[in-house]
């Protein structure tokens, strides 16, 4: 078991591939075909292309504030360890993993263009809406997977959150419930070192986040979160454990956000440039690309083709999202309850009347 060898109390960290794409631990290399590795790579690339486009749109005023995933795309490999019938309960920096898992790309754009439809998943895609109140949602993953256990189903739930979220009381409650009830939950913490301006060491006096698992009576493991193979191997083990009825796991994926917390902040105010210099060569996408090139699975021609495909998918999604009209009165009222209440019927009629009057006044 990886969690045994990489005991969080001994401050071990799982790394399978180094920053130059060399395999350090062949014995731990997950069982992935070349085609699967290429698929993983493509979705990481797609995540990055979508993100880069979003940043450009935001700067042009065509999109509102969002949290870039830039640098954390290896999260795709965590979702890759799930079955598509499982659940994802995201925070707000998991667009790459969610797009892989079946969230239409246009949903990402629509949500941050200010449209509720962005949170509406297609049928059978079990991804909850993003959760902006930090750390509040891992409890939902516990409840979802607990229900699955009670119903004797095999679906598991994976929840994503950041280092900052582990300071919230709800994180404690989620971990405790999962530990006590042995729910099939995977807690995937993306420790990207910064909660806006607060560095990881000011967030918790724990040496690692992974070792918090021990106190809740569940396995925990710290991994190189930019090493796609480590991410997959640890996630797969946790998913299998959950599905086999052996309870939850906490994975601490050590990663780094290359950009700002959201487009509304300026990381140069609180971060040193040399940090970024350290992390840039550990870019998860570049690392996997180096591995694929060294193993003759990938060349510039394939890269170009993949990029073109990603650009096309993203452009199509943006065009569709931008075509979506502003929300109507119905859209902002009608989902408050299963049925409109008498009060809402009256308020809606009033608002429609006001809009008509305004139109007639010009």
């Amino acid at each position: 078991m990886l969690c045994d060898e990489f005991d969080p109390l001994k401050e071990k960290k799982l790394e399978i591939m180094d920053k130059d794409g060399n395999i350090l631990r062949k014995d731990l290399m997950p069982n992935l075909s070349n085609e699967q590795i290429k698929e993983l790579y493509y979705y990481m690339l797609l995540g990055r292309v979508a993100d880069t486009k979003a940043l450009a749109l935001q700067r042009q005023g065509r999109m509102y504030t969002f949290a870039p995933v830039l640098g954390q795309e290896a999260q795709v490999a965590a979702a890759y360890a799930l079955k598509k019938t499982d659940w994802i309960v995201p925070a707000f920096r998991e667009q790459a993993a969610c797009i892989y898992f079946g969230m239409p790309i246009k949903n990402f754009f629509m949500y941050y263009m200010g449209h509720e439809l962005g949170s509406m998943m297609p049928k059978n895609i079990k991804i909850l809406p993003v959760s902006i109140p930090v750390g509040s949602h891992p409890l939902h993953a516990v409840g979802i997977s607990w229900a699955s256990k009670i119903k004797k189903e095999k679906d598991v739930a994976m929840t994503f959150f950041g280092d900052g979220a582990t300071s919230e009381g709800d994180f404690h409650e989620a971990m405790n419930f999962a530990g006590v009830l042995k729910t099939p939950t995977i807690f995937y913490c993306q420790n990207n070192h910064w909660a806006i301006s607060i560095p990881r060491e000011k967030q918790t006096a724990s040496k690692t986040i992974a070792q918090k698992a021990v106190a809740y009576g569940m396995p925990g493991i710290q991994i190189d979160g930019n090493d796609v193979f480590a991410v997959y191997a640890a996630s797969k083990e946790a998913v299998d454990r959950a599905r086999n009825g052996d309870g939850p796991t906490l994975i601490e994926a050590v990663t780094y956000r290359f950009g700002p917390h959201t487009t509304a902040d300026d990381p140069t105010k609180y971060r040193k440039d040399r940090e970024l210099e350290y992390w840039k060569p550990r870019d998860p996408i570049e690392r996997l690309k180096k591995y694929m090139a060294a193993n003759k699975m990938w060349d510039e021609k394939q890269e170009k083709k993949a990029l073109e495909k990603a650009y096309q998918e993203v452009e199509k999604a943006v065009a569709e999202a931008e075509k979506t009209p502003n929300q109507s009165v119905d859209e902002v009222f009608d989902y408050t309850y299963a049925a409109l209440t008498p009060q809402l019927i009256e308020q809606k009629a009033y608002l429609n009347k006001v809009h008509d009057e305004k139109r007639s006044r010009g």
Partner: protein
Amino acid sequence: MNMAKITMVEAVTNALDYEMSRDKSVVVLGEDVGVDGGVFRATDGLIKKYGSDRVIDTPLAESGIVGASIGMAINGLRPVAEIQFMGFTYPAVDQLISHASRMRNRSRGVFTCPIVVRAPYGIGVKALEHHSESTEAYFIHTPGLKVVVPSSPSDCKGLLISAIRDPDPVIFLEPTRLYRSVKEEVPSGEHIVPLGKAKIVQEGMDCTIVSWGAMLHECMKAAELLQKDEIFPEIIDLRTLSPMDTEAILSSVKKTGRCVVVQEAPRTLGLSSEISALIMEKALEHLQAPVQRVTSFDIIPPLQRGEQHYPPDPYRIYRSVKKVVEM
């Protein structure tokens, strides 16, 4: 006295700075309030001046921030906690309702809780989900808490200073959309606006408009529309929502005989409902028309592309005032 033309967010910094320099027990704490200077820069520069023992970057935990502030206050400090947005105060609601509001009462005055919890609030800056909340009623409904909402830089400074000096817990809500949109002259030193006192912003005879925060500015725009119809409302800025200046409302209503209350919060059980009931109880015989409420709706604040449907705007205020005046 020295005056400087500043924004509301600068007025917050200025008030904090002034109080910290005057009283060593005042400390500022919250997420990103130190090195980063706060997400809206309201605490910019304070850590340099007062150090990290008095300008404290906390872990990311709102209940922790407020709960720890309660303890600090009990033990003699004057904590001013920042919660990044009103929509993130909810994890701290247990601490506010179960502890901050009732510590004085439970200990029969032996332990008290002079904390200030500041939070930007309200819709209108095209912010993310949970960043547009206007749920002051939760706090107004809680005995033991005071609730303050400034609508101008000068009031903001004066009210924040009063809040910090107040012996009881104060929820201080800063309308995000006014943070940088209004500039005015604000005294640079001591400047106090007492809690519990409303302000008549514009005098008039035809109808009383009661409002607060960002909505006050919509009321002023509505007054311009009304002027064209030769209707002259009296506009009251409540400033402190709890305890409310009932006298200011009643004496104005007794003069005008009409009242429209404008709030950004959802309609049901907002403060406007309370004001309406108050007028019914204490000034019914002076009324020439029923009190009207202009409010947001009983729905979740919509994301940016639906914001236009939500808060009161000058036209909605205009038509309600016109309606009561023509009754």
